[in-house]
């Protein structure tokens, strides 16, 4: 159960090696011995994540999870809930890839669309079913400002995030009557392994900054947040910039 001060007792991370996802789990645990389920592909990085969380006193379970294998999603999610209530589920998997390859290579484009959109939807449907039965809990979906106004420089990624963003905003409405909250998080440029080698955009943040925003959102039952917060105003302005000007902006 999420308690009166917003602390959960169990967290499911889909994308078990996601840097942002793990930072969120650590922040939600806040040093308390909570139950964590990491769903991801078996790897050295997943083992490291388990060891790190166990060191902090958490009871960690891993589930083999592949985003592209949508046929298995319902079963993986059901397994996570079989061990007891899940208070917060974090949908943190995604691929960034090479933006120029992504719009010219069919396989690369389809993979990105599948992981970032189709798989996110598939997982969302499975989570919704479990959470409705449970009557409480929160889903955190990691979207991106790239999906808020899709731009030339990474439009395959941006369009996939735009799709998942829209799905989870809708899911938020659909789950309201059942007492389940959905938070869509739109981070800007986050300095992680995924963005290593890219030059950081203004207002860039770290995984730990995103975790702070998410913990606050879970606590205060927010439906849509930006990381950092001021990006909300920036994106609000950018959304309305006319196309001829927008394409000239160094974004």
């Amino acid at each position, binding site marked *: *159960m*999420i*308690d*009166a*001060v*917003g*602390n959960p*007792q169990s967290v499911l991370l889909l994308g078990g090696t996601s840097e942002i996802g793990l930072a969120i789990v650590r922040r939600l645990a*806040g040093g*308390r011995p909570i139950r964590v389920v990491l769903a991801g592909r078996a790897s050295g990085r997943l083992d490291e994540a388990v060891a790190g969380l166990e060191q902090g006193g958490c009871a960690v379970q891993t589930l083999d999870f592949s985003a592209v294998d949508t046929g298995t999603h319902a079963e993986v999610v059901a397994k996570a809930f079989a061990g007891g*209530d899940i208070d917060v589920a974090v949908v943190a998997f995604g691929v960034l890839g090479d933006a120029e390859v992504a719009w010219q290579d069919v396989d690369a484009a389809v993979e990105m669309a599948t992981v970032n959109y189709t798989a996110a939807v598939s997982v969302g449907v499975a989570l919704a079913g479990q959470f*409705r*039965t*449970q*009557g*409480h809990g929160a889903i955190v979906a990691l979207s991106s400002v790239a999906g808020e106004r899709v731009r030339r420089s990474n439009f395959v990624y941006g369009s996939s995030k735009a799709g998942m963003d829209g799905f989870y905003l809708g899911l938020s409405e659909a789950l309201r*009557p*059942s*007492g*389940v909250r959905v938070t869509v998080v739109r981070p800007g440029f986050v300095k992680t392994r995924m963005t290593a080698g890219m030059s950081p955009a203004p207002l860039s943040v770290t995984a730990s900054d995103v975790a702070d925003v998410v913990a606050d959102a879970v606590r*205060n039952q927010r439906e849509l947040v930006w990381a950092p917060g001021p990006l909300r105003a920036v994106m609000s302005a950018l959304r309305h910039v006319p196309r001829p000007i927008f394409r000239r902006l160094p974004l």
Partner: protein
Amino acid sequence: MSAEPAVPRTARPQRLTGFGRTAPTTALVAPISSEADVLAALREPGPRGITARGLGSSYGDPAQNAGGLVLDMTGLDRIHAIDADSGIVTVDAGVSLDALMRAALPFGLWVPVLPGTRQVTVGGAIASDIHGKNHHTAGSFGNHVRSIDLATADGTVHTLTPDGPESDLFWATVGGMGLTGVMLRATVALKRCESAYFVVDTDRTANLDELMELLTDGSDDRYDYSAAWFDTTTTGAALGRAVLTRGSLARRDELPAKLRKAPLKFDAPQLLRFPDVFPNGLANPRTLRAFSELWYRKAPRRQRDAVQNITAFYQVLDVFADWNRVYGKRGFLQYQFLVPMGAEDSFRRIVEKIAASNHASGLNVLKRFGAGNNAPLSFPEAGWTITVDFPIAAGLAELCTELDTLVLDAGGRHYLAKESRTSPAAIRCGYPRLDEWRKVRSAADPAGVFTSDMARRLELV
């Protein structure tokens, strides 16, 4: 063949919280107005189980059951019998203490244990084994219960008594947070009274030490009722300055002539219902400091034999309906704990910690408890209890965790009717008879039908 609906047809999904308005969850709420309704629900409990709910005055989540069934017991509200000679009443579990009091007073009978509000049901009063300002002389509510009719998970109704054949289930139900079954009816022994007024003495103390002295010099036992408001916003020499009010029910001859004509008149109006328009953060350290200053200053330094009605002396906040809305949407939590006699030093350290923190509380109560009862999960025992209200704010979780350590190290515990954020380990530590209670509970409910958000959160069952 179609299956029977798993829940009563009249059940509707509803978002529920406790009085603190924190941690909302959604459950199917079924209105209950008869024993048959309860037994019907027990036949189809569903995968997420059942919890009974009264007036929702617990601060946290004991009357919530996310994804499951919640029985709204307030419709089971008949007062069956009042025996004016013996003072024994038989009431449905959904009868509020307010209704019981209004019905019993004309017979010269007084509800023997009253909490800070009359808006609780008899079932809730037993489930939380509530206490009042007279705990040091009258004990908790369970001490006055003569029998409970409990519907258990198998659909049978047991009449439990404190020393009958199923006395272990009686005492597991007293303070058992509704987790042993659904209470249908209870018989309670009321206390004889000559008036509905109190004769009250007030003492304002400069600090906590002065207050503790007054409470331990033997004078406390001369009063049936005793509790102090204290200030959590002052430090140093004024740490825990307090207003101690103590009194007893007035005899008819103690009343002024004007009141003597109708000494049993129940004089407790509801003046105001707060609208749900207050922003988060209105109750902040600055406003709470101002409130505390005012509350302290308005009290007389020393006053003897003042005649006061129940609102003035006892249930000040019952004048306002929905006053919890003042804390805004984010809600608040009430932190109530006790430390045993002899742990006065830790007690002082806890008050110091609250005063030094940047979390302020306006409604703070300090009381000396008398001896506890037989119930394994009953909260009161001989010692000191403090209640503070904190608006939910950043850093509050950390402060409360630090307070937990001090409370548990001193051999104390948390009050489950107020609890909304501690750990299962803290409850195990504070209630050493938890396992004994669990054994009785699981014998009565082997399939675990009765559960609640609190039961899940604190791993009670």
